[in-house]
């Protein structure tokens, strides 16, 4: 039995050590590249300290009590006393957690409010506004001031606040750049906002963290922070060389596919902003028929196809998509 207990204690002793070393390894959340992500990391570190304290206290008490009062040959005659409780102890272990909660909630609230504002020290910089439209399964970035649009990558100037206005053309996504900031949901017909600053030029991974169907994995984008000069140069280049985004091309783009990088010298905001409550709906259920038994779908009045085409609706999907029914579960991203 002794052997068991030793193993037991050893096993659980490893855990806080693992937790501790967590702060020193190269995890992206602990290597922030801007003030927003840094303020979250500081909050996390503050909480880790307290939580470690809790873990150490509970584990120590646990180890001590189990060790000391375990049944042994010598104490088989020992009959434990009847104890109902102890008011003093109970007050102590109610009060201490309350104090810890207070210690944690104050910085939490402060950070929550701060995250909605331009970070401290950057108030005087004019923020760059970028509209983000998430679609299955790509990220579309529109720069209204510069009048350009990119897909699956976004270039931003360093040391300047960027105000991402998030929306979705369909499913719900979560816009996350762990090195620079936390995440926010992007939802259709509404707008959320995420502000961040990149302190250094560099390339950072951004991704969707909210599951949104078959092509969810790999719905990533690159955030490239550049010097203001490089950024201006890039804008100028795009204006000169990039193609024009047409409405047809845009509708094609919204279909459920994985795309590479694209760049355009105008933005789709000219004809639709999916954040508007009464924007047209760009859904197309027929393109999602790839698993199992197919149910019926419904015509929607506010669908974009109602106006500009008479052939798109109806029942012809079935012939069209029949062939890919057989590969239920087949990983055929982008075949549509």
């Amino acid at each position, binding site marked *: 039995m002794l052997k068991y207990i030793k193993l*037991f204690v050893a*096993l659980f002793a490893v855990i806080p050590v693992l937790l501790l070393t967590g702060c020193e390894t190269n995890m992206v*959340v602990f290597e922030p590249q801007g003030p927003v*992500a840094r303020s*979250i990391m500081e*909050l*996390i570190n503050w*909480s880790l300290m307290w939580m470690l304290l809790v873990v150490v206290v*509970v*584990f120590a*008490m646990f180890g001590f009590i189990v060790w000391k*009062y*375990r*049944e042994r040959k010598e104490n*088989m005659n020992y009959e*434990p*006393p009847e*104890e109902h*409780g102890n008011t003093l*102890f109970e007050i102590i*272990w*109610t009060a*201490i*957690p309350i104090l*810890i*909660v207070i210690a*944690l*909630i104050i910085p*939490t609230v402060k950070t*929550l409010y701060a*995250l909605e504002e331009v970070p401290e020290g950057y108030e005087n910089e004019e923020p760059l506004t970028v509209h983000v439209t998430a679609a299955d399964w790509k990220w579309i970035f529109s720069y209204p001031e510069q009048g350009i649009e990119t897909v699956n990558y976004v270039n931003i100037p360093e040391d300047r606040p960027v105000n991402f206005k998030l929306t979705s053309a*369909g499913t*719900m996504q*979560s816009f996350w750049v*762990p090195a620079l900031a*936390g*995440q*926010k949901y992007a*939802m259709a017909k*509404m707008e959320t906002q995420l502000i961040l600053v990149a302190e250094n030029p560099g390339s950072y991974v951004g991704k969707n*963290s*909210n*599951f*949104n*169907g*078959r092509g*969810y*994995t790999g719905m990533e984008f690159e955030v490239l922070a550049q010097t203001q000069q490089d950024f201006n140069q890039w804008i100028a280049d795009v204006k000169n060389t990039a193609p024009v985004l047409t409405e047809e091309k845009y509708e094609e783009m919204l279909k459920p596919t994985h795309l590479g990088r694209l760049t355009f010298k105008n933005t789709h905001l000219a004809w639709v902003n999916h954040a508007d*409550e009464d924007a047209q709906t760009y*859904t197309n*259920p027929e393109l*999602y*028929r790839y*698993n199992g*038994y197919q*149910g019926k779908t419904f015509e*929607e009045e*506010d669908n974009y196809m109602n106006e500009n085409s008479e052939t798109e609706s109806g029942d012809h999907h079935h012939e069209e998509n029949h062939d890919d029914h057989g590969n*239920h*579960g087949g990983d055929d991203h982008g075949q549509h």
Partner: protein
Amino acid sequence: MGNIKWDEFFITGDPLILGAQVSIALTMLGVLFGLTYLKKWKWIWREWITTVDHKRIGIMYIIAAILMFFRGGIDGLLMKAQTSRPEMGLLSSQHYNEIFTTHGVIMILFMAMPFLIGLMNVVIPLQIGARDVAFPQLNALSFWLFFSGAMLFNISFVIGGSPDAGWTSYFPLAGKEFSPSIANNYYAIALQIAGIGTLMTGINFIVTILKMRTKGMTLMRMPMFTWTALVTSGIIVAAFPIFTVALALMKFDRLFGTHFFTVSSGGSDMLWANLFWLWGHPEVYIVALPAFGIFSEVIATFSRKQLFGYKSMVYATVGIALLSMVVWVHHFYTMGSGPGVNSFFSLTTMLIAVPTGIKIFNWLFTMRKGRIKLSSAMLWALAFIPTFTIGGVTGVMLAMGAADFQYHNTLFLVAHFHYVLIPGVVFAVFAGLYYWWPKMFGHMLNERLGKWHFWLFNIGFNVTFMPMFFLGLNGAVRRSYTYSAESGFAPLFLLSAIGSVILAAGFAVFCYNIYWSIRYADRNISSDPWDARTLEWATASPVQHYNFAKLPEVKSFDAFWQMKKNNEGLTLKDSEIEEIHMPSNSGQPFMMCVIFGVVGFFLVFEWFIPAAIASVGIIVGLIYRSFDYNDGYHIPVEEISKTESTWRNEKGEVHKHVG
């Protein structure tokens, strides 16, 4: 129905699924053949399918839960295998999506809940000194509706297609706009049917615990498990109707084209998220609280000490229940509700740590000055404390709204809730099984195998889920079927996959332990093998169907312990025996199970006319039941006397029978 698309009806083309189909067919044939060969049809109908005995219903819940654990566990292992290496090709993305969806739903609704409800069924009436629950036939109906829902959900992966929008089934993804296959109808309809059963269980247990307590069993003398069952039933009654409504709206959207949660025509995806979590968070406590109750019983018994701070435990339980209703927004801090709302919900969520902490310290102090016997049941309770502490502190970290912007939807979260659900529920049901097994079956589970089960499962569990915290902090998102080699995630994913194999080995030992113990364990054990404290041990093992020949009288907390100490109420005289009135068996709940299953199946496939016709059966069943005047039967005195003298006069038995 004229145009059934047979080519889409059965899921084909995947060797894994084909294998599953074949094995399901073979198992079913095997069971049918076995029953026929052993001439057990009558027996299974009379003794099990039509039973209204709370103990047998409890055992059926537990068997179903173990089977569902198996199914959900295979899902878990498949996911771990798929992510063990970068760019693995074992599962496609669609298949992975289906698997984590069914894993989550099955583990929570068809494993954790029935497991605990099963133990509640077996134990609660005994603990309060009652002969059955308040509404025995309703109890059977609860079970059969749960079973109907569970089976309907499980056939989805061979017929029609598995739900694939996550256990949270977020809209608009789960709506027809993005999921036109009928697969997600299974989610809405199967959970609806099972949910009705759960709601009735909640009502049944509230009434049972409030009305059926034996003489002297005041509320503040009730065992902790009974208290937690009462509070859990309260949460069920408060929270399940929300889910019922949400699922109904989901069905309207999917089957009839309404716009509650759609993108088009003014639906709101956030409405679903709110309704879902208004139920979903309390749901976590529906399973956690009874588990806390089990640990309280086990820790007190094996420390040979009364539960420390009983009163504060009761208040803490009620406090957790109340708080659990006002924290749901912590599941979507990132939805942009603003810092004010997020601050409020950060605070309420963190406050749950206070009553939970009270519980942890009370358990520790129950053991202090005790004599801790490291039986298998107790080992699970012990391991629970440190592992659940990790689940708890990471929960507080997630509760901090601003920090959650980095943890949300990552494997950090997945690790956290497994650290809560596995110690908090799975360890508890294991502890409960080792502890109450002799009560249910009259023999113990093997302690040596129990230790193997414990160590393998525990080590496996920690190795599987500890790495996920770090993966999450390094940016690994949840529900992703693969990752690139450059991401740097590979080593920890591999470690985690190795852990899951150890975990599975532990579960296998558990199954073997059941088999071994049924075959070989010693049947000659006393009715109170653990020297326990509460009333379920104040009668035979296995318990005779009327539970108590004479209802025990309670004079204090830990009633049975005091009875043994004062040598009171342990002896039964012939003169004290009276006829006992018991409810009759009924086949109706099972019939309802079949009818609900058929209606549900038609609805899943959107065949409305057959569904309408079949649902007439439900109405007929209700009418039939209203005119059912069978009010049970009486057990004659001689039969009771005979049963009682048999078990009471065995050697080493603390109970006595005198003629």
